[in-house]
């Protein structure tokens, strides 16, 4: 319950935050919503000497659309996603996903950017970001770079972000009209991390799958894009045989660790079932 002592910094601007990060290097951690970092510090899994609170950086807030691309500030909270009329109209998958994350109080504090950069395979946004073909804007002292979500997650708690960089915003191309979507998440109770979950976007054309993206949560050491499963569907008619084949390939892509949520076989089977359900719901919601 009691974290180790540390020094607290509350920069008022992004350049100030980057300077602090540069000055304190590996001994510093960025504090966003604090609902992964503080719990780890309370259990002394993490013991940073400096916390740099991003809470005052207005430039990391907001949800906007610019030229067919949604820009979401990294410090946007889960409840702000859920209550966004713009996202409801343009990107309902993100709302469906956010509603299955944690609980109301946690969602008032936890942020989209924090959920992504934590790199926990149990978090839901990594799969949602891959399904939505998102990319991340990373700001360092030398400037800004943009990296795609697919490839950003390299291991448990490990991502492409450098210790001197700050994730400022998330870019999501507005899904084409008629795109189907679903986030199917199996969990033991409200607020739990997934036993297995599957994020899907799906577009049909002329009775065939025109494009599909499938990403799996918490069935490996990091989020998994199930490209073989996608290949089983792309260009094919959407029927039970092809959905079953995609689900089997999704299972084959899993590499789950046994824990209190279940053993490897169970999690693998559930990843297949969540993929099957997400695909069916996405198809129902698609224009076809």
């Amino acid at each position, binding site marked *: *319950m*009691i*974290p*180790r*002592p*540390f*020094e*607290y910094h*509350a920069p008022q601007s992004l350049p100030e935050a980057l300077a602090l990060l540069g000055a304190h290097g590996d001994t510093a951690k960025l504090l966003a919503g*604090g*609902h992964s970092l*503080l*719990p780890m*510090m*309370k*259990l002394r899994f993490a013991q940073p*000497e400096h*916390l740099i*609170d991003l*809470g005052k950086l207005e430039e990391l807030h907001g949800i906007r659309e610019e030229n067919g691309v949604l820009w979401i500030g990294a410090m946007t909270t889960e*409840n702000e996603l859920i209550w966004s009329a713009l996202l409801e109209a343009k990107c309902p998958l993100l709302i469906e996903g956010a509603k299955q994350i*944690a*609980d*109301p*109080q*946690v969602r*008032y*504090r936890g942020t989209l950017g924090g959920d992504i950069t934590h790199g926990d395979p149990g978090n839901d946004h990594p799969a949602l970001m891959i399904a939505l073909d998102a990319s991340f804007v990373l700001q360092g002292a030398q400037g800004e770079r943009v990296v795609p979500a697919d490839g950003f997650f390299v291991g448990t708690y490990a991502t492409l972000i450098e210790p001197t960089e700050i994730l400022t915003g998330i870019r999501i191309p507005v899904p084409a009209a008629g795109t189907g979507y679903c986030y199917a998440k199996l969990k033991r109770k*409200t*607020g739990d991390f997934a036993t297995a979950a599957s994020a899907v976007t799906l577009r049909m054309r002329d009775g065939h799958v025109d494009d599909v993206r499938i990403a799996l949560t918490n069935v490996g050491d990091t989020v998994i894009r199930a490209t073989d499963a996608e290949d089983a569907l792309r260009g094919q008619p959407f029927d039970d045989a092809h959905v079953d084949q995609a689900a089997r390939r999704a299972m084959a892509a899993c590499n789950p660790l046994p824990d209190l949520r279940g053993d490897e076989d169970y999690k693998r089977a559930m990843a297949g079932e969540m993929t099957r359900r997400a695909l069916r719901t996405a198809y129902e919601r698609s224009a076809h």
Partner: protein
Amino acid sequence: MSKKTMVSFTLNGSEVDVAVEPRELLIHTLREKCLHTGPHIGCETSHCGACTVDFNGMSVKSCTLLTVQAEGADVKTVEGLAQGGELHALQEGFMQEHGLQCGFCTPGMLMRAYRLLQENPDPTEAEIRYWMAGNLCRCTGYQNIVKAVQYAARKLRDGTAESSHPLIEADAAHTH
């Protein structure tokens, strides 16, 4: 490294200044320095919600917030719910509908429901259960907590309230 800093915030309408180490959690400041011991601690993994307070118009678990983050904040605890000795509709609802037994989760439940009813004055039962999911209770089985929130929602909307209990005639309707 653990030098204390002064933090000023509003607590139930009054200004408070506290000197805290950066690592001090808001729940400990509220309970140990401000002596507002209504908010409770039921876990160390941010699940139970017994520490819930209203923070700048949000329900937050004060065990997962540093007091230094409360600089300039507007904080409300269960101690600030009653006005002029008159119970808030939610407190009355929890009493009338038997929405508590041991009372340990109750301050957090009340503060969460307080924010919920401002965001959604007429929630369905499913909405109440979903939007109260960050608060655990060991005693009630939640059933009467749902009724208590419904009672308060009715009273806050149209000033009348009726107990769901068949043998109780709520006098709430007569007092306003």
